């Protein structure tokens, strides 16, 4: 699964820590997501998409 978290984070001017705080996870989880080492739960994917005001499928692609 690919994602656009890094790209969108840069676009919104958010640091990994900022995004982690917004979705209530550890910073390491954001690092893992950006590196493609972790596939998030539906809840986390939904929360991240909401931060970027996008649909889940616009952030995460199979």
């Amino acid at each position, binding site marked *: 699964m690919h994602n656009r978290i890094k790209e969108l984070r840069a676009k919104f001017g958010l640091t990994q*820590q900022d995004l*982690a*705080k917004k979705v*209530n*996870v*550890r*910073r*390491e*989880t954001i690092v*893992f997501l950006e*590196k*493609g*080492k*972790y*596939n*998030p*739960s539906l*809840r*986390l994917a939904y929360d991240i998409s909401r931060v970027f005001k996008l649909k889940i499928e616009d952030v995460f692609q199979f």
Partner: protein
Amino acid sequence: MKKLFFPIFLLSGVTVVSGIRIFQSGIGEETKILFIAELIHMVMIAILFIMGIIYGIKRIRSTEEGLPEDDELSKKIVRKSAGISFYITLFIWLILLFIQSFIDIDSRVLFSFGFVGMSLTFVITWLITNSCGIKDA
């Protein structure tokens, strides 16, 4: 914070107590093999302590930054590591029991090594899972 300290305390406690037992059982027996075994055991305990301290510091920092101590990824990593290490430790115990049938080892020494082996296996598995990530969860 209670959740953080209990596992570290338990891990450290088990390894230290088992280490002390080995050390005590070795006093008076001036065999070179036993001394080497004690040394290895102490090094293992030191590694476990250092790992525990690093892990604790990381989690305290995370809390200070306003981030959660645990999240879905960390819980999955612990669960996966526990599963894998349980499977591995079954073989460790089998090997130890096999060794005991050939060499006369004190049961305290055997259990101590078993516990240290279990702890080390979990730490190593956790480290590997933590660095490789979980894609299939």
